[in-house]
């Protein structure tokens, strides 16, 4: 029973090169995300609607200046949260539930490779979101200022913090619980995180607490730069960095693959 000839199934094992594996995985993850209606609602439809609606209809007093200048940075923060946190938590929760993570764990793709691919997929989606929302914001008369590197740093740190929180949730709760909780958190942070409603509308005590949320730090930081032309909003950068380290560490510690 030695493997002599070359039958169809004659063993010829081997892993594909690592970059090819990660690229294939990132592509598949992105495809799954873009094909999912609920995900698109969360990542594209809701941010777009909010941006257009709140910019054109005077629902919330956004302070002096054009409403879109206040809203666009908040909506960009919301877009990051919708993809890195809500979308990733729900998708990963169900992948865990349906044994996808388990099956991939037996494939040649290492676990860190899978996580890298997930991050790439999140980044690709965010780039598409940012392009779309920027175009819409410009058409609504947006005039952004500030240092693009500060914006990039805030977006990356926000993505890291939200990814950590999303994976922590997906890796510890049941899929249905993740689905419910991720949507609830999305809604609460949308209202109370300075996305469309300025934080100074809240009582002072609440402001102090809400200001420490990652969504508030991200929208506030982006607003400081894009609306007010600040250099580097170190306070918000610091808050996001702490969230990122804490959430990713917790996710790395508590994530269960099945």
């Amino acid at each position, binding site marked *: *029973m030695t493997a002599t000839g070359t039958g169809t*199934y004659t063993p010829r*094992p*081997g892993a*594909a090169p690592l970059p090819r*594996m990660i690229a294939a995985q990132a592509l*598949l993850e992105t495809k799954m995300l873009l094909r999912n209606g609920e995900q698109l609602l969360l990542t594209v439809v809701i941010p777009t609607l909010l941006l257009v609606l709140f910019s054109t209809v005077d629902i919330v007093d956004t302070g002096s200046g054009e409403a879109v200048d206040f809203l666009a940075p908040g909506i960009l923060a919301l877009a990051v949260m919708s993809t890195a946190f809500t979308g990733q938590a729900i998708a990963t929760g169900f992948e865990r539930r349906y044994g996808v993570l388990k099956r991939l764990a037996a494939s*040649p*793709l290492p676990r860190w490779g899978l996580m890298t691919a997930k991050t790439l997929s999140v980044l690709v989606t965010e780039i598409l979101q940012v392009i779309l929302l920027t175009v819409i914001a410009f058409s609504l008369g947006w005039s952004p200022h500030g240092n693009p590197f500060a914006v990039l740093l805030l977006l990356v740190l926000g993505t890291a913090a939200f990814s950590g929180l999303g994976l922590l949730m997906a890796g510890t709760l049941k899929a249905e619980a993740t689905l419910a909780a991720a949507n609830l958190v999305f809604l609460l942070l949308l209202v109370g995180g300075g996305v469309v409603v300025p934080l100074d509308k809240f009582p002072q005590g609440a402001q102090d607490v809400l200001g420490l949320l990652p969504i508030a730090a991200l929208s506030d930081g982006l607003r400081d730069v894009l609306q007010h032309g600040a250099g580097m909003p170190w306070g918000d950068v610091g808050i996001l960095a702490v969230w990122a380290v804490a959430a990713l560490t917790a996710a790395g510690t508590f994530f269960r693959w099945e």
Partner: protein
Amino acid sequence: MRSDPVVQVQALVKRYGDKTAVDGLDLVAHRGVTAVLGPNGAGKTTTVETCEGYRKPDSGTVRVLGLDPVRQSSDLRPRVGVMLQSGGVYSGSRADEMLRHVARLHAHPLDVDALIERLGLGSCGRTSYRRLSGGQQQRLALAMAVVGRPELVFLDEPTAGLDPQARRATWDLVRDLRADGVSVILTTHYMDEAEQLADDVAIIDAGRVIAQGTPEELCRGGAENTLRFSGRPGLDVGSLLKALPADCSAAELTPGSYRVTGKVDPQLLATVTSWCAQHGVLPEKISVERHTLEDVFLELTGKELRS
């Protein structure tokens, strides 16, 4: 002299809370097809998943292709194919999409289209995974296990719930894998599957291997076979018994229907027929019943397999 074992499990213990799933299990699988047979809850899946590197043994050692499945996982994973009992595919992916993806993770994968045809999944095409029938999902999982051209595949209940045609397609593929030099470890609770496919069968019950050998060895060892014949009612069974070897028994079950149990071999058959000739009996409907794995299992465990 057989080559190195593909799987070597020694004194494996695995507990979940206070429940012991695997309780000092020893198993050696050589090249070829090894069936791990046992009722639900016997510890089959836990054993296989420990070999696949999913679970860390509480004690004991596990070696697969000579490697530690947990610590040498990255060396082992490309060489092993895994078919989970269920799931493993993105619910939003199309039937062939995940298979093509798994193929891309390997250096020298099989031709995906040919494999899809081979397993009768050609008609599924772009159907989404969640709309496939249970049997189609299972064949897809099987395809995912073999597409990377592994040396060894683990199939966990590969034909549970399949219709006969799909079952045959799976069996044919396992035979082809074996013929091409791929080793297969499969868990099953179907006796016929083990008898049909396996070079070697390990019977597991309550977290231990209680018997291991070729299907023939298992059916022969210690087990008694049965010879039945019909004749006129009221034959002298005592006289027949005297003609038989000492460890046999004979009985008239219903009038005219006789049963001889013992080591049924050609000699025994000759003894019975010559006894019949001496007594002027023409035995009708003479039959020899081979002892099946099912009988062996029942004797070893006192349990029906499918309970």
